[in-house]
């Protein structure tokens, strides 16, 4: 019997959108010189007007951050800083529904993901780092590690609020102040976060948010008043930033692209592996830097795994991101949709065989069906370059060492997955895969206590866990007088 789920849209009434948003500088919203619009990628409706931050605006924001750093935040005892972070964490949890709905409207990701993953994890990051604020002397970086100063942070559009939390929580816990630039297409939850900072009575200037495009980002990372740059985004932009601050002495951490291998051995728990493959590449429409975009499956089980995978892909529910039963939402922007489309076409032209899930695409908005490529040459760009969309390439291997060689044969090294019932094989693979995170019998699982970051062109530096603190501490300082870690 056919069993169709009726539409179950989450209500938008919890969100109060403003017509226009200013920049958040020195604790209040200020206007700038020009504006741009942010749209919902699922419907193409205009959601709000956003201020485009120019050179003067960045100057003002950096100055406010410097002032707050010197007068307030760096001299505040860690246990007091921690109280603010706990307060922010609680406010994020209390206003979770509002954040989730707004994130889905602006980003296009399914409400199920923003509700169950993005927002709870963002809150968890603040809780986790709140706990560190008065314990930095015990983090293994000496008895009184110092903050770095003003951090300039540029974040991507795939997990807007979560990436904000990954950047702001450790910076603040360690005693730095920040100027953050959200992605051009997804600024709204950052603006709501600014309201939360006000609600939490966070001292003015500790968090400043300057919206804008790539030019605003360049102004920020090129600003001489910035002591530390943290960037998450494309490898191309990361290289540009690395060149820019090669001689400036600014501290830099980069979290860039990936082309992760998801390796399925013949003794894998097949049904769960199929779920893991799905979660690895179709979670968040594949807009995940650590997405498992290269499936490597042992030849002896390749046919059965592929059959099961296609059957499962056909059951994915693509459509209105606000519907609580939607599995696959909208592609974030027309630009990204064009990139995914042309990468897929190039794959077909090179002779790879394309299979897309038979799902109807909505007429308005930006959509791409879950897709896989078989008969892919390892040298083909579709198998080598990051597509950042719901596109999986499938190839086979015969032995564990061949799997390892193929998995490591990439310029990236952000994550990898291993599926096997044999614990020793999982551990052996994990120790030899050149990737910052290796998941065994799971994928795309995040925790604030676990460090995340890349090898090779996936960047450097770690976020999360004790390791992540190092990016925001002057771990070589020998000044024992101490300004910040008076716990």
């Amino acid at each position, binding site marked *: *019997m056919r*069993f169709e789920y*009726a539409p179950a849209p989450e209500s938008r009434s919890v969100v109060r959108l403003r017509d226009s948003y200013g920049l958040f500088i020195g604790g209040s919203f200020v206007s700038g010189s020009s504006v741009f619009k942010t749209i919902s990628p699922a419907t193409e409706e205009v959601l709000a007007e956003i201020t485009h931050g120019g050179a003067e605006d960045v100057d003002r924001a950096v100055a406010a951050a410097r002032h707050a750093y010197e007068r307030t935040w760096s001299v505040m005892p860690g246990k007091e800083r921690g109280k603010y972070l706990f307060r922010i964490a609680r406010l994020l949890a209390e206003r979770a529904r509002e954040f989730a709905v707004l994130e889905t409207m602006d980003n296009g990701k399914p409400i199920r993901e923003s509700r169950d993953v993005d927002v709870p994890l963002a809150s968890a990051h603040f809780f986790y780092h709140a706990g560190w604020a008065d314990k930095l002397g015990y983090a293994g970086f000496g008895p009184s590690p110092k903050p770095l100063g003003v951090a300039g942070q540029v974040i991507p559009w795939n997990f807007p609020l979560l990436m904000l939390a990954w950047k702001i929580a450790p910076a603040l816990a360690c005693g730095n102040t920040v100027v953050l630039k959200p992605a051009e297409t997804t600024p709204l939850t950052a603006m709501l976060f600014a309201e939360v900072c006000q609600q939490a009575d966070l001292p003015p200037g500790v968090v400043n948010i300057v919206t804008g495009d790539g030019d605003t980002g360049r102004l920020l990372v090129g600003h001489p008043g910035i002591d530390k740059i943290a960037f998450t985004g494309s490898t191309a932009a990361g290289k540009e930033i690395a060149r820019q601050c090669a001689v400036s002495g600014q501290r830099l951490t980069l979290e860039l692209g990936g082309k992760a291998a998801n390796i399925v051995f013949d003794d894998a*728990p097949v049904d*769960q592996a199929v*779920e893991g493959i799905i979660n690895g590449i179709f979670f968040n429409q594949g807009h995940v830097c650590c997405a498992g975009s290269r499936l490597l499956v042992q030849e002896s089980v390749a046919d059965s795994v592929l059959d099961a995978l296609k059957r499962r892909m056909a059951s994915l529910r693509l459509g209105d991101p606000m519907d*609580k039963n939607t599995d696959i939402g909208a592609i974030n922007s027309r630009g990204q949709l064009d990139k995914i489309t042309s990468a897929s076409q190039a794959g077909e032209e090179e002779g790879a065989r394309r299979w897309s899930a038979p799902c109807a695409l909505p007429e308005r908005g930006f959509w791409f069906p879950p897709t896989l490529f078989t008969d892919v040459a390892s040298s083909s760009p579709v198998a080598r370059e990051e597509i950042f969309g719901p596109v999986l390439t499938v190839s086979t291997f015969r032995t564990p060492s061949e799997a390892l060689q193929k998995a490591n044969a990439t310029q990236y090294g952000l994550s990898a997955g291993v599926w096997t019932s044999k614990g020793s094989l999982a551990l052996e693979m994990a120790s030899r895969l050149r990737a910052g995170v290796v998941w065994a*019998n799971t994928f795309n699982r995040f925790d604030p206590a676990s460090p995340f970051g890349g090898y090779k062109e996936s960047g450097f530096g770690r976020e999360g866990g004790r390791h992540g603190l190092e990016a925001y501490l002057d771990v070589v300082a020998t000044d024992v007088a101490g300004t910040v870690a008076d716990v």
Partner: protein
Amino acid sequence: MDVTSSDSALRRFLHGLPAVDEAGARDRAQALAGRSVKSDAKRTALDLAISMVDLTTLEGQDTPGKVRSLCAKARRPGHGAPPAAAVCVYPDLVPLCVEAVAGSPVRVASVATAFPSGRAPLDVKLADVKSAVAAGADEIDMVIDRGAFLSGRYLCVSEEITAVKSACGEARLKVILETGELGTLDAARRASWLAMVSGADFIKTSTGKVSPAATLPVTLVMLEAVRDFSAAGERRVGVKAAGGIRTAKDAVRYLVLVNETAGEEWLDPRYFRIGASSLLNDLLMQRVRMETGRYSGPDYMTVD
């Protein structure tokens, strides 16, 4: 599938099945439990669930009066709802049920084979089955010998199922795995396949006498088993989730699990059942709510 020729052949086959990762199976079951089923979909689901209920009473204190009232409820649950799939009772009450449901689509299911422990000699178990069938039972719910299964005597379990199946004649055979005693989802998957290759028409989670009874993860694994068995060119085997399913919300979660694991072919009382007693009233209460827009209460439901 001829893998039942010897203990070692069965062992090779069952232990060659793909493993189950417990954490992954739990995650998947939980994700599906989060599906939102509203309005028309909920209306459809409630009636479908009612038509899949094996209305059950398996107590030492069961009396003819109690069982007659249960049969009446199964035939006409009230409030415009469709009849339940079956009544499920101990063998001695089968004749009474046959009479009470005569002329209705409600089937009579009887537990047998020294239910619930299964601890009796094979000839006693077979006599148990034959008497229930002779009394008119349409369906037999047998229990497997969990002791034999856990000690690796798969052939013993298989032969017993085969013997019971042949004693069933026309009656459909549900094989109770009692997954709460098997310990792991790997064991649940092996027991599912063992039952299927030995002739089961249905595989059933639990007796209801052991905790945990039916759970979403174990039902997920069993649904995967019947799906894969059918995909391998074998017959379509049904699944019965029994015990611990008390609310309409839970029942709808099981239907979602069936829909997205085995597929719509299993959304049919011939291939999916829910063994329950108190569930029916909650389904009816939700049904009334859908129709009137107001919550009813237990005082408006019959006690059977």
